[in-house]
């Protein structure tokens, strides 16, 4: 595997971005170049003396080389480590979704469709079904596009409160209502008797802790767990309410849309990114899974003043307060608006609808990242989690090849994610995380279901092994 970048790659909702401020990247390069230059100079200086001194110079050289190789190794391990840091949560989300689909029959039962997909697929002819599913997908995608443009407009005209309120309401819906339904269905499946009082207590605690963790502060692992859970819940909703052909079409179209929106110059997501960059601020808190928050802890530990600021700015509604705060902080020197923004970007509310994935544009902020390269983390948008899980969940729900198809889609998605990370290391700019994985996933789903499954079935029938 080639090297993945040493700086902080960020995967936004539907896009990968590099979160390296130019100064940070250049400083890293400078330091490593300086080191190399010094080493080569030292070697050149040492060489004329090498005949006289012999061993000692070699020792210095060896130590120097060892240092450099450690640095390079760190760079490399850093790259591979980040792939794994994304593999694990994506795998966990998919495992939760597949486990639920296999055990709780509620999510595979047909109970109507969403209003975004009004056309039914229970038609008489195949042609009619195809037409209906195309129309459904078109309606869904246009809803998403409209929402994205609405978001860009809201952001451009600085209606931050509207956006924040919207995101908070969505996360409330997900954390309380959807999880209540999920818990109810799980109890029904396993025939567990439960009284409303205990249930209310459980849901209340789950929801409140979730809101706090996701929108404010909380232990990193807990926040990650909550983000995975709400992605899984969202994916389950999609799996239940999207009819089959519509679901596959939507997956295909949304990866194309992702590609277009992130890479085209006039794409809404790209415009969003550029606007936020112009304003030199992070976007409103978005749906991002982050693998590390250590820098936050570091900052808090290093600067007691910053800690005080953190407690002051614990509420969300601080866009208005930002300006006076920044003026006050200017005297502190160093921990100013950039630090604020970094901390704010940690706080990601949840969005329950697919339109929100367009909202996730957390920017490559120009803030300082942690000093220690080991602490830098990777981020992936929750929309990517959701659509990966939808693909694998639908594969496990409806495939005739059953586990073979599910596993094939799973491997395909992981490889797509790996390749996307590789591309990120090469191109070092915002990249969509959906297209490659979804393409591989779809190809493997249809191929495994129609080609591989009959073959393996026949082989298993005769107990042949290949």
């Amino acid at each position: 595997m080639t090297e993945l970048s040493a700086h902080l790659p960020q995967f936004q909702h539907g896009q990968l971005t590099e979160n390296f401020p130019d100064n940070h990247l250049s400083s890293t390069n400078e330091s490593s170049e300086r080191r190399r230059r010094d080493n080569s100079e030292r070697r050149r200086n040492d060489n004329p003396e090498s005949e006289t001194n012999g061993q000692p110079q070699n020792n210095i050289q060896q130590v120097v080389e060892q240092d450099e190789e450690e640095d390079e190794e760190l760079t490399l391990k850093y790259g591979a480590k980040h792939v794994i840091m994304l593999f694990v949560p994506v795998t966990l989300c998919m495992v939760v979704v597949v486990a639920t689909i296999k055990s709780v029959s509620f999510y595979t039962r047909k109970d109507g469709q969403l209003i975004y997909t009004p056309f039914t697929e229970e038609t008489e002819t195949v042609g009619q079904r195809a037409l209906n599913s195309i129309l459904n997908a078109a309606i869904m995608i246009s809803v998403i596009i409209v929402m994205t443009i609405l978001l860009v407009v809201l952001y451009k005209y600085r209606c931050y409160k509207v956006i924040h309120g919207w995101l908070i309401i969505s996360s409330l819906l997900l954390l309380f209502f959807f999880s209540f339904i999920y818990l109810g269905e799980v109890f029904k499946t396993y025939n567990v008797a439960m009284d409303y009082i205990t249930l209310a207590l459980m849901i209340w605690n789950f929801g409140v802790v979730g809101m706090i963790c996701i929108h404010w502060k909380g232990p990193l692992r807990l926040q990650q767990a909550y983000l995975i859970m709400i992605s899984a819940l969202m994916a389950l909703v999609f799996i239940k309410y999207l009819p089959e052909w519509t679901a596959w079409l939507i997956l295909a179209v949304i990866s194309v849309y992702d590609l277009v929106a992130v890479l085209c110059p006039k794409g809404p997501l790209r415009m969003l990114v550029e606007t936020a960059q112009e304003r030199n601020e992070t976007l409103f808190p978005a749906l991002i899974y982050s693998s590390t928050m250590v820098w936050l802890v570091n900052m808090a530990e290093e600067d007691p003043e910053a800690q005080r600021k953190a407690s002051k700015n614990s509420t969300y509604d601080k866009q208005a307060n930002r300006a006076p705060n920044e003026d006050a902080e200017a005297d502190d020197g160093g921990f100013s608006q950039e630090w604020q923004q970094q901390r704010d970007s940690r706080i990601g509310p949840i969005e329950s609808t697919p339109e929100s994935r367009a909202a996730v544009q957390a920017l490559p902020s120009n803030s300082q990242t942690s000093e220690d390269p080991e602490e830098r983390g990777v981020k992936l948008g929750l929309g990517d989690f959701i659509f990966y899980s939808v693909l694998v969940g639908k594969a496990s729900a409806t495939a005739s090849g059953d586990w073979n198809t599910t596993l094939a889609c799973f491997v395909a998605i992981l490889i797509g994610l790996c390749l996307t990370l590789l591309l990120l290391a090469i191109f070092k700019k915002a990249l969509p995380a959906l297209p490659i994985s979804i393409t591989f996933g779809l190809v493997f789903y249809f191929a495994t279901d129609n080609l591989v499954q009959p073959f393996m079935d026949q082989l298993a029938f005769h107990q042949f092994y290949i």
Partner: protein
Amino acid sequence: MHRAAAGAPGPARPPSPPPPPPSAMGAAVFFGCAGIAFGPALALVLLTVAAEPLRVIILVAGAFFWLVSLLLASLIWFISVHLSDQEDSKLQYSLLVFGAAVSVLLQEVFRFAYFKLLKKADEGLAMISEDGQSPISLKQMAYVSGLSFGIISGVFSVINILADSIGPGIVGIHGDSPYYFITSAFLTMAVVFLHTFWGVIFFDACEKRRYWCLGLVVASHLITSGLTFLNPWYEASLVPIYIITVCMGVWAFFTAGGSFRNILKCLSCKQEEDNRVMMYSALQVPFED
């Protein structure tokens, strides 16, 4: 075909050897067979692969390559089936054998392709690191890639069978062998091991350009697959396959650089003398960056 051993009444018959009783299924069979089939693989993954991110990536990519090979083989089989007479069962049987052979050959082709890719990656990694050595050696990559092929091959062969074994049902009620699950589990374990060993031998053969080794690996894969055509005559299929597995294991051990001395050293748990200490005995001021 025999009737199920449910004591059906009928006219007196000459005594015949009693048919093997059909076996029940359930959680015990599921866990037992899953443990037999994937226990060693899981242990190997947990102990040797899970801790290193690079090896995990190689594992997943290897699975991907195997899946692509299976896809192509299934495509070929599918086309051949649909171009032929579907009613002729003998033809379908021979097409299945043909499909299995094509699949084996394609797996080896893709193993070679994976070797090429890993070789390039190895060079890339070596170029990046300053001391010219990549963080993972080709032998480790060979082992991990073999393991990945084995795991995904075993999983694809047996996972649906395991899922069915939870029940309810009775195996062998129509006269087929009641040992279906357990023999499948043992075959899967053998397949996992075989692929691991083949991976090690194959990569080494490609590296050292020993084409007879390559041919032997491909031939043994074909033979193993062919032996499974003898199922359910398990004595003829399982025993030779395990003999082949042990032979491949010994060959892979020596290919990877093992020897009797290594085994003894490993078993005696002696700490190796670190004689690198001597290099810095000419004390210098520690180099400061």
